[in-house]
């Protein structure tokens, strides 16, 4: 078992899948000659040639549309959108075409494409380049949306996404690229739509995905070490399909929950999770479900303001404390 970065896990997986299946090809801005803005595709142009690693003009709607067409005809495109913010340009192709073609044409053709794209704030890239707009896509039936938090999950879910016959939004987070984790030598494709209990516990459930799943894991370990609080962490991994069962089962066990998300609070993923908890674990709740999310502002550029606007280990810890106080398990 090797310890590698999230970035490396993505790179290795793309390469392995291209070697395994010659229908898999990469398409996007600056992925070839420049080897990707975040170097995920380093070396792949040299290895696989221009036919399978295609640089495109700055025209998201165009190349996403091309990928949809290629997928309909049997190829397996893996699109890199430089950041999720640019996916808005291609929104029509993603929401109106990729998501709907299978259903609208009675299953005659499917769209086996993957849209890889990083999002998230914290890099001082300004409001338009620091968004967590995964909700826009998780909202749409016909799309699958995954958001792995660890290198091993990144690998297992990217394998699954490439081999899936439906369009999959594969969400990365800029803050995760350099994080490291153990990746088994042989990784099986993950089941899309299955959450993971990344730390079992009994006192409280913390639910997160992507960067906040990692923060939740750190907070839970810290609370265990410092205060003996035994929190359970649920890493959603997939936002659509959403694994409500694992969440509900965990909350039924612990009796209270905090949801951590990098996106905005109002109407957010956390609201959906809270509704699921209310539906499936109402009689098991000892306190209202609490949510930790980003401040509802366009993310500021100034570093201290940007820090203050994003949810952090501290804000999550505070929310856990408040919830535990509400159920009398902390003095």
């Amino acid at each position, binding site marked *: 078992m090797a310890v590698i970065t999230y970035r490396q896990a993505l790179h290795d997986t793309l390469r392995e899948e291209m070697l395994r299946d010659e229908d898999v090809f990469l398409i996007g801005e600056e992925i070839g000659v420049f080897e990707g803005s975040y170097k995920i595709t380093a070396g792949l142009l040299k290895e696989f040639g221009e036919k399978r690693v295609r640089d495109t003009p700055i025209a998201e709607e165009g190349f996403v549309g091309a990928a949809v067409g290629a997928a309909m005809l049997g190829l397996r495109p893996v699109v890199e959108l430089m950041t999720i913010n640019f996916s808005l340009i291609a929104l029509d192709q993603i929401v109106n075409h990729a998501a709907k073609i299978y259903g609208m044409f009675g299953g005659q053709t499917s769209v086996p494409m993957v849209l890889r794209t990083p999002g998230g704030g914290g890099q001082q890239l300004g409001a338009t380049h620091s968004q967590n707009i995964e909700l826009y896509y998780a909202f749409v039936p016909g799309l699958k949306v995954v958001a792995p938090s660890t290198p091993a999950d990144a690998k297992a879910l990217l394998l699954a996404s490439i081999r899936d016959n439906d369009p999959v939004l594969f969400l990365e987070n800029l803050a995760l690229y350099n994080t490291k984790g153990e990746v088994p030598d042989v990784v099986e494709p993950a089941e899309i739509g299955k959450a993971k209990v990344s730390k079992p516990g009994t006192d409280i459930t913390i639910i997160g995905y992507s960067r906040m799943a990692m923060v939740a894991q750190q907070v839970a370990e810290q609370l265990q070490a410092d205060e003996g609080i035994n929190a359970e962490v649920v890493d959603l991994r997939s936002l659509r399909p959403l694994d409500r069962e694992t969440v509900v089962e965990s909350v039924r066990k612990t009796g209270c929950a905090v949801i951590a998300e990098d996106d905005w609070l109002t109407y957010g993923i956390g609201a959906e999770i809270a509704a699921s908890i209310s539906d499936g674990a109402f009689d*098991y709740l*000892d306190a209202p479900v609490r949510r930790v999310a980003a401040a509802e502002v366009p993310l500021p550029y100034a570093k201290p303001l940007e820090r203050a606007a994003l949810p952090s280990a501290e804000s999550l810890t505070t929310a856990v404390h408040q919830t535990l106080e509400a*159920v009398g398990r902390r003095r």
Partner: protein
Amino acid sequence: MTEIQMPRLSDTMEEGVISTWRKNVGDQVSRGEVMAEIETDKAIMELEAYDDGVLEKILVEAGATVPIGTPIAVLGDGSGAAAQAAPAPAAPAAPAEPAASTPAPSAPVAPAEQGAKPKASPLAKAVAREKGVDLATVQGTGPGGRIIRADIEAAAAAAPSAPAAPAAPAAAPVVSNEDVEEVPLSNIRKVTAKRLTESKQQAPHFYLTSAIDVTELVAFRANLNERLQAAGGPKVSINDLIVKAVATALRANPAVNVSFAGDKMLQHKRIHLGVAVAIENGLVVPVIRDADRKSVSEIAAESREKAGRAREGKLKLDEMSGGTFSISNLGMFGIEQFSAVINPPEAAILAVGAARDEVQVRDGEFVARKILRVTLSADHRAVDGAVGAAFLQQLTGLLEDPIRIIA
């Protein structure tokens, strides 16, 4: 098509028995018509149709016990009826409003919950149900006084041993013995067990006994009955006179006519007396409302009528709920004296024994008198010893000078 579900007919009801179906499959049913009789933990209630339609299916046969919310029948336009279809009615019952939304008649535990409903987390409520803890008796420590699981667990732990006695009996000895027959608990027995266990666990009982000279009362009653009979009225019993006297004494001692409700006391302004009646498979307590404002004859007639219906299981729920004080009389069995368990959420109960001939010393002389012993069990959280004693003193005075009972 409307699915009819086992309704929740009382707060304590968890399951019900269909005692009789009054309608058959294929029968036309109109809104408000009685479809079935349902035996709850306390009473037999009528299940009325909430829609017009045809009874298409009976899903639960008479005699079966099912949890509330279980579908028990299907009401439709007749097209699905197994039997020869009655003429199809105009419109099938509109929205599938399950019968479960039947507004429950005033809850049996009403007095304790007369104030604002205690705030409790869903988990606390679930654990309270499981452990048989009355939320009204628990002080919440969560935000805004919300009752949380920890509070229920503390309350359950404070009540010594036997958690949720009836719900989870300690592993019973294995019954492989042919000398022992397993008898399933009737609903009424289950509820009695649960409520009385709660009462003994949660209410700190204390007991006060008085020996009352009822020589005059017995003579008074004979005299009274002669007159009533001459006037064509029904007779009154010693118990009826005791009921009236208790009501009068409670009026003078309102501090006994209370309920303990966690962080507050409920002072009942009206006097509703429960009179315990033993029935074949348990104990029910019909309530005589405003007993202090009724005449002894009225009390006599009402108790006789209610006790009769209680034995047939025909008492309605609201006739057994809302008592503020109870009386339990075992005198007819020759019991000299006993202590009764308080019927929550009431704060006290009077146990009445048999009137016996005894020798007393009066002015240095032995005299034969009829003596009746009564024992007041009171919840010390709500009633103090002196308060209970003053009440008993008043009651004794009334019973020893019986003309005052009807005054």
